């Protein structure tokens, strides 16, 4: 019989092997799924994982999708290190997009270098304010942040839909629910000419590096770690859980808000209802896959960005449903959580069942 046994010391090897193992298992399962659907699995996996990044345009698209994931994941890392399970990056992202759009629409005809920073700042502030609601509910009313952030995500989505159907709707947009195209001064510059890759990726990388510095160098990063690992030690040391909760949520909201702002000022150029294919949720997978570590989340965001464009590629090339992206992301998270169990536990073969002496046998046993 197999036994799951607690390891005396957590396995460092498994900590980093687990994501690789999870990816491998995802690919194997994907292989089986393609077979089951009667598609060529090798072709399918190639379209999903390799074709999208086989040229510069593809790589630029990858970077384009990485940018919002990285920004959201960086903020979530700050929360998760402190064991604040903020699921609200999607909501922060949408509010960031909405906030930036509100300002950008007012500044369509404005010009000057100040326009873009103002628009981006509006996104940051909107995201942070949205996160502040959940932070306040947690610190003052002890509401569980998982529930409040999820609910706030839906409210944010509906606010955004209201805006594009109402106040921000382009009056000359043939009735489509979208805003006017932003002015040139409100758009992010491209990083590589001829591609859609824009400055957002630089923001993302900068956020990842900042998170690294926060936890490797700063005292507040240390305090966040202590609160996450041992809240009683934090109380003993006098680290204010309330102050740290606010800090983590505001950082999480600001980065996701910037991600939303970068998305509307970058590749899209206007506010549309489908501004996010679920970046805020996918970023949760990125954080766990990346081991809450800066380098890890950069690699993980690249991989999950690939699932978005791989999924699109499968839709085009093999007529696969759009759900493929979600399926692969779900598989990956599922396997990751399973493999993570082996950081703390190991499998042991049980010894042969121990001898059981029934009561009757004891009564009959010869005296010693």
């Amino acid at each position, binding site marked *: 019989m197999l036994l799951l*046994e*607690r*390891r*005396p*010391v*957590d396995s460092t090897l498994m900590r980093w092997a687990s994501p690789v193992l999870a990816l491998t298992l995802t690919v194997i399962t994907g292989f089986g799924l393609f077979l089951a659907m009667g598609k060529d699995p090798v072709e399918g996996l190639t379209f999903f994982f390799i074709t999208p990044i086989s040229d510069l345009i593809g790589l630029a698209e990858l970077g384009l999708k990485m940018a919002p994931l990285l920004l959201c994941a960086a903020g979530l890392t700050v929360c998760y290190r402190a064991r604040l399970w903020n699921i609200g990056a999607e909501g922060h992202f949408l509010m960031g997009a909405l906030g930036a759009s509100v300002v950008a629409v007012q500044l369509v005809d404005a010009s000057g270098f100040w326009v873009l920073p103002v628009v981006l700042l509006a996104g940051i502030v909107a995201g942070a304010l949205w996160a502040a609601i959940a932070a306040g509910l947690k610190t003052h009313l002890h509401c569980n942040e998982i529930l409040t952030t999820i609910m706030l995500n839906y409210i944010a989505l509906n606010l955004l839909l209201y805006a594009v159907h109402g106040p921000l709707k382009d009056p000359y947009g043939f009735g489509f629910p979208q805003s006017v195209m932003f002015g040139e001064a409100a758009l992010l510059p491209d990083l590589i000419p001829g591609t859609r890759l824009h400055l957002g990726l630089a923001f993302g990388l900068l956020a990842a590096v900042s998170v690294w510095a926060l936890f490797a*160098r*700063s*005292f*507040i990063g*240390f305090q966040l*770690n*202590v609160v996450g*690992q*041992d809240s*009683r*030690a934090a*109380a*003993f*040391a*006098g*680290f*204010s859980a309330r102050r740290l909760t606010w800090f983590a949520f505001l950082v999480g909201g600001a980065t996701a808000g910037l991600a939303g702002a970068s998305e509307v000022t970058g590749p899209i150029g206007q506010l549309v209802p489908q501004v996010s294919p679920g970046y805020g949720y996918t970023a949760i997978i990125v954080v766990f896959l990346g081991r809450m570590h800066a380098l890890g989340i950069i690699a993980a965001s690249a991989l999950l960005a690939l699932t978005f464009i791989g999924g699109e590629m499968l839709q085009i090339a093999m007529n696969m449903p759009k759900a493929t992206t979600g399926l692969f992301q779900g598989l990956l998270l599922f396997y990751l959580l399973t493999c993570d169990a082996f950081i703390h536990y190991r499998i042991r073969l049980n010894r042969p069942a*121990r*001898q*059981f*002496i029934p009561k009757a046998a*004891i009564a009959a*046993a010869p*005296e*010693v």
Partner: protein
Amino acid sequence: MTAGLRLKLENIVKEYPGCRANDGIDLTVEAGEIHALLGENGAGKSTLMKVIYGVVQPDEGRVVWNGRPVTVDSPARARELGIGMVFQHFSLFETLTVAENIALGLPADEARDRRKLDQRIREVSERYGMVLDPRRYVSTLSVGERQRVEIIRCLIQETTLLILDEPTSVLTPQEVAHLFTTLRKLAKEGCSILFISHKLEEVRSLCHNATVLRQGRVSGDCRPAEVSASDIARLMVGDDTPISTRVPAAKAGDLLLQVRNLCWKSSDPFGTSLKDVNLDLHQGEIVGIAGVAGNGQDELLKALSGEIPRTRGDMNLGGFSISGLAPDRRRRLGIAVVPEERLGRGAVPRMSLAENALLTASGQGLVERGLVRFSRVREFSREVIRRFDVRCNDEHSTAASLSGGNLQKYIIGREALQNPRLLVASHPTWGVDVGSAVAIHEALVRLRDEGASILLISEDLEELFQLCSRIGALCDGRLSTLAPATELTIEQLGQWMAGQFEHAEASHVAA
């Protein structure tokens, strides 16, 4: 077969990942014998008890019960055989009555007839001098009475071997004496008792025989009444550790800490509220607070450290009010704290020793403009390790990897090296090996001689009388007067621990 040989363990081996808890242990207990099992924390006492009581299975070895080899594969089986155990932490439901709690452990047919059960409980409790009303709710019982419930629960099932795990740690001296009378009576009637303890004087007065464990092996057997306590201590700790400290008298200086009418209402229905605590502490003295566990010791420590934010009454440190200040602010004013729980409060288990230094010592120039100066953190940590003889790989070892005694030395060292004006230490040597305990006592005395005040909260009366110039006791959140240790008798302190002090007297503070 030996007549009256009740339990015989042969070569018991139990291995846990990374530690051989029992390494070939032999033990015999005869009928009617009170047998002590001695050893420091981590010597393997608890594991051996769990083997006997069927909680864990030995990897090797044989258990012989009344002359027949048996497999005790569950506590239920142990109870069937006649083995009863009273754990250190009671397993009673506070919201049920005494009789209901006892009925839970009985076979269904015996538990059903409540009137008969009440009758049996009364009979057993009166026979052994443990008066107990079966209809009372456990939540209304004192700790000593709860222990009686546990013992009666065993006796009612015709137990012939009673295992008691550190039974006296929760009792006042008077209650201990009472318990011993009961146990002697039980033994006289033929019940065997396995008495686990590390309090040597108790073992010497009560037990017929003793088996001493060290590092999972039997390090010796003795008749405790016939050898000295230090001989037994020697068997417990080995040859190379000092076993006591000499404490020169203190010269108390100016008033440092003044606590007036400190009150705090616990929101936990089973917690302890602090009621009108008054306390004066002078520079260069150690003041001891005795008390049975759970009578407000932790609450008092938290009120002083600032972990409990909203208290009523006044707290003054050197004429400066500290009421309402957060723990880190108080630390900057010179208050250092050593909490009862080392892992999970005094230190973060999975963080390194260096990081754990940063936990409370950030004010020692280890943080500049919000950035951690890691080289200084490591230096500070190495200094603690060196000066307090902490046995570990280096400052990168995790807190969880250290033994209790070594981690405690590290925590005390971390606080002491910050040159506190006041150190509040709770149970600093609880569960610590004798060698570390001596080192910790020496560190406290050194700190005192450097002019710091120390408030020592402990259940170990020997420790308090050894170190403190004045001693008081907490009972149900009230503090007795503080009497000079030289004038205080252990009987008087025992009465205080049981709450027998006039409240008017308590609010008057001995200068």
